[in-house]
């Protein structure tokens, strides 16, 4: 995007008024890092929303309420009961990018390699969008296509509600890159809840090597109520992903990426299960 002008908003009301006045040409800007990847043909007026949209992480009942302008580095540093997003943040690009990029920017316009949509789908997070009225969308609704489609001029993402994990629940995360700071070839995020030695529920999400991040419900269905074991996890990952379409590229075939997905989902399930049973992961 090519910026023809910029505006600073001192607070939310001002940001919304400016964005409404600008209409489709207005571009809310938090870290602004996404412009590295957009076409210069599209002319926009940037509106700095950093003083308008909240930043910070606060416990709110069973969830953490994360302000959309929270930098990924703050997610990386935060520690709290049932908080797992530090593990997602620290694996994303480099420290300077984590200091610049915000969680709101990462999920409001989803690039193929985006890490947080995958984790938030697995965790069943909720997103609060505010304009003239406020509405809350669960992750499945929010990521059912490019989230940018949901925002009318003047509407902004105002909060991300991330469930705090409790005893008997676990999170697993795997991201395969060629170099440590590289874009993901395949990302897998998994939430499991244990019922004794069986899987009560599993939420499995994958991203990067697929057209758009999404749930792998085939894997989830195979695991529901099943006795947990590494063999069961690997079998469910293999069979449950078999029907999905994967994207090749960078010298990697679709078959390879599909195989990688099964390995990573299996690994993430194992990790999540160990955590659910009170282990270290």
């Amino acid at each position, binding site marked *: 995007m*090519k*910026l*023809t*002008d*910029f505006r*600073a908003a001192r607070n939310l009301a001002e940001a919304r008024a400016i964005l409404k006045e600008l209409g489709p040409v207005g571009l809310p*800007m938090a*870290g*602004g*890092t996404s*412009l*590295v990847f957009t076409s210069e043909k599209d002319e926009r*007026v*940037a509106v*700095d929303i*950093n003083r308008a949209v909240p930043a910070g992480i606060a416990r709110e009942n069973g969830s953490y309420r994360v302000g959309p302008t929270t*930098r990924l*580095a703050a997610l990386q540093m935060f520690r709290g009961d049932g908080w797992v997003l530090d593990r997602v943040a*620290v694996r994303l*690009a*480099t*420290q*300077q*990018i984590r*200091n*610049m990029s915000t969680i709101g920017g990462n999920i409001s316009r989803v690039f193929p390699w985006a890490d947080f949509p995958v984790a938030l789908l697995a965790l069943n997070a909720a997103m609060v969008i505010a304009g003239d009225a406020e509405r809350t969308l669960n992750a499945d609704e929010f990521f059912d296509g490019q989230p940018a489609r949901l925002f009318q001029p003047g509407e902004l993402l105002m909060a991300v509600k991330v469930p705090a994990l409790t005893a008997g629940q676990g999170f697993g995360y795997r991201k395969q890159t060629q170099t*440590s*700071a590289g874009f993901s070839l395949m990302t897998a995020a998994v939430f499991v809840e244990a019922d004794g030695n069986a899987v009560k529920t599993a939420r499995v999400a994958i991203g990067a090597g697929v057209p758009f991040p999404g749930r792998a419900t085939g894997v989830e269905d195979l695991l529901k109520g099943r006795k947990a074991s590494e063999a069961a996890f690997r079998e469910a990952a293999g069979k449950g992903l078999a029907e999905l379409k994967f994207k090749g590229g960078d010298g990697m075939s679709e078959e390879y990426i599909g195989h990688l997905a099964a390995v990573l989902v299996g690994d993430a399930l194992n990790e999540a299960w160990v955590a659910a049973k009170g282990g270290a992961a």
Partner: protein
Amino acid sequence: MSRRSITFTINGEKKTFEIEPGEKLAKLLRRKGYVGVKEGCDEGTCGACTVIIDGHAVFSCILHAFLADGRDVRTIESIGDFDNPHPLQAALVEEGAVQCGYCIPGMIMSAEALMQEMSNPTDDDIRTRMDGNLCRCTGYEKIWAAVKKVAQTNKS
């Protein structure tokens, strides 16, 4: 496309600059004489352009200059000079950690931000906080050793 003015604190001095809407901070700083800010990749992958904004290391080559409005910006020019080197600069020399030197201003800014934030960084902290700074010459070990030396002196 009209020029617009922004004001921020640069190395302790409040200054006003005229900028183009899409101008990046590295370009602005270099045209204003802060040429210790280096440009390598110009796309947020090498770290040569690292500056500190409000205490955090960022890539100035991809940071839109207007986002610095009202903020506190520090460049390598705030760090020390040949006659009065910053302890980190002295340690880099002692460890033999500098070869061509192109990456070093960015390395120092990342290390400075790390030391401002943490008083006793572990080896892991140092590597994680400096994972955005590439060096094509040294192999990193001596740079990390120099940072560790100063970060640990800081602690005592």
